[in-house]
């Protein structure tokens, strides 16, 4: 110990010169960090800063960008599509939570009890996750054919239910979108839960049985508390993910019918890339920053609240 503390004392009193930096392996450190610094700098940190800057500018490609203060944000509040998009996104997040949060848990609990061939179950559950989302969405678009001959409508007719409009009606369009999104994503949630379930120490169950707990008791007093960290994390991750949903409503219904599946991200895309002549990058970045701020706030509040739970 004395040698290292002596060395520390020596290094503290020794002057740090460029030579000591080189001798200490400085250039190698920098070289190894270089790919990350360049890539992140150009494609992550820079754009994040630029996003904030652009949200207070008006950009077109003929003249230099001009500073416009909060005009972009004000324009957002005046645009009738913004509240629609916010409402739709919240609706999607809610439905996705209802279908995609508890059901995978139940499935995972059942799967964790499987004695043999658990791998088969896992593979079946995860299979839709590896299918490219474009393929999934375009495939389900066929299923959702609203004519009586459509695939789902044919299945419904076997059990005596009439043909449904699926994505052809504002009332059923969002649930249809959620169904596709859940099909494509629920499998990964199941696997995450399963991994957490199988890592629950069996002694805890033994101890609970000694205390006389039945099946439900074990689930309530052992399984769920053990799963709490995973449950909390997947909840917030799901919220953050569903708030940014784009592909499913974009390809399935293009935001229709009558803007009933228009989400915030689709609106950002429209502002930035679908205006006929003028690109409205200012409004697009302003809206994306508002969304980011909301999610940040939500996460902070969420972690505060759940910290209170965790300590119980």
């Amino acid at each position, binding site marked *: 110990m004395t040698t290292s503390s002596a060395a520390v004392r020596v290094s503290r009193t020794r002057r740090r010169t460029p030579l000591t930096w080189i001798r200490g392996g400085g250039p190698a450190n920098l070289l190894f960090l270089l790919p990350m610094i360049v890539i992140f700098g150009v494609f992550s940190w*820079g754009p994040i*800063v*630029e996003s904030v*800057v652009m949200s*207070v*500018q008006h950009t*077109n*490609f*003929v003249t*230099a*960008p001009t*500073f416009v203060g909060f005009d972009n944000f004000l324009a957002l509040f*005046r645009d*009738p599509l913004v509240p629609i998009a916010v409402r739709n996104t919240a609706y999607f997040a809610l439905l996705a939570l209802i279908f995609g949060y508890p059901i995978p848990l139940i499935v995972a609990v059942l799967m964790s009890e499987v004695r043999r061939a658990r791998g088969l179950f896992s593979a079946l559950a995860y299979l839709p996750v590896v299918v490219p989302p474009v393929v999934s969405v375009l495939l389900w678009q066929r299923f959702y*054919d*609203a*004519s009586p001959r*459509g695939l789902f409508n044919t299945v419904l007719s076997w059990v005596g239910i009439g*043909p449904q*409009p699926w*994505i*052809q*009606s*504002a*009332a059923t369009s969002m649930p249809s979108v959620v169904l596709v999104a859940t099909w494509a994503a629920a499998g990964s949630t199941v696997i995450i839960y399963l991994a957490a379930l199988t890592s629950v120490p069996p002694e805890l169950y033994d101890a609970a049985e000694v205390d006389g707990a039945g099946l439900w008791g074990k689930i309530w007093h052992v399984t769920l508390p053990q799963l709490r960290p995973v449950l909390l994390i997947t909840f917030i991750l799901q919220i953050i993910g569903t708030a940014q949903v784009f592909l499913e409503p974009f390809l399935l*219904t*293009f935001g*229709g*019918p*009558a*803007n009933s599946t228009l989400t915030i991200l689709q609106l950002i895309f429209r502002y930035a*890339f*679908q*205006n*006929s*002549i003028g*690109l409205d990058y200012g409004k697009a970045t302003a809206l994306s920053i508002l969304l980011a701020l909301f999610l940040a706030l939500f996460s902070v509040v969420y972690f505060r609240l759940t910290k209170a739970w965790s300590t119980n």
Partner: protein
Amino acid sequence: MKSPRTAAAVLAVTAIAGAGLLTGCSASGDSGNTNGTVAITIASLVPGSSADAFKAFNLRVKEFEKANPKVIVKPVEYQWTGPTFSAQLAAGTLPTVFNVPFTDSQSLANAGQLADITSDVKKLPYANKFNKSLLQVAENDKGDLFGIPYGPYAYGLSYNRALFTKAGLDPNKPPTSWDEVRSDAKTISDKLGIAGFMVFTSGNTGGWGLTEQTYSRGGRMEVTEGGKTTVTADNDQTVAALKFLQTMRWTDNSLGSNFNLDWSGMNQYFGSGQTAMYPSGSDVLTALVQSDGVDPKDYGLGLIPTEGDNSGVLSGGNVAVVSAAASPAEKAAAVKWIDFYYMQKLLDKSAAVADAKSLISNKQPVGVPQLPIFDKAQLDTSLGWIDSYINVPKENVAPFQNGIFDQKIIAEPAKHTQELYAALDSVVQAVLTDKNADIDALLKGVNTQIQALIDADAK
């Protein structure tokens, strides 16, 4: 608010952007000129067109290069959509020659995003023969010319003759009033279980189609008086048009069950026999053959029924334009190509025949209905030259071709057209998917929304 670093970054981006636009420094746009040769990229066909269509086009390219050895031409697939244009403009990857619809050419010209080709066009022998009102769409407010209009169309009623026959209707007698449209549609949908009639609903085409249906009843979407434009989407004729659709959808059930159709989606819907009639541009047959496998023998084109005072037919077209990043040599070459490919077949017999021959050899339609760019006499002459090559049965398109010149041709609404169409898309979709859609409220909403945009311009 801006840190020096960010200000520098913004300056740098702007400088590079500005320099890029000025010097045409881009990845795949106009490439360099060497040994006095000029290389230009040109918009060819929409993505997904058949291999035969591309073969026909490439034949024409070869003919042009032979006649102009100093010019190298590189075709690229191109389809005008707002986002593609904006993105490519920003990236500097626009083809040298591409096309924009009438609705956008003037705003682009005024914004300086197209090349001024006034002097190059003046050198053409027929520069004064253009239909003056048509030429206006390609000019900016000062009267400088930024493109050459081509392919003007008017709305017509495309219908499937084979399905008409199958349903017991006479294919030579398409419906001539909206009531007849309704009853024919009901007959077809009852007998064949498909959509007897259908309209565009998305990708801004819903609003485009609704505007046409308004014009055909005598209404207008925008009214300009004394320099001030007022949006009048809630006029009686639009309401009537929507109520008509509502009845067909919910009472007759003759509109099928897919209400999310943009331009190419609807063409496919028609081409695969899932609808028997739809209002469309009169030039759509080319796309139908190139992309959707339609046989001209089964295709019919009638007139859109017009009823009431002040009624007319919506017209539009395309403008062949040159990218603002083109150098003077590239501009001259570009105008030469536009002249060769788009114009010559209307003015010169051998060019017309060559064009027809290349289309025929690659199984493309010849004789798709057109409106005149110069005047009717010139159009008739040019059609006479290729008469023996016409493979679209004349009687199929006779109802339109014979009647259109008696119709009042009305241009699309002038201000914020695409935003107006986009807002109207939702209205059409709502009426077709929600039994209880409140038509008046929806249209008033459109008024407010678009009027705000127009008023903001004036500030």
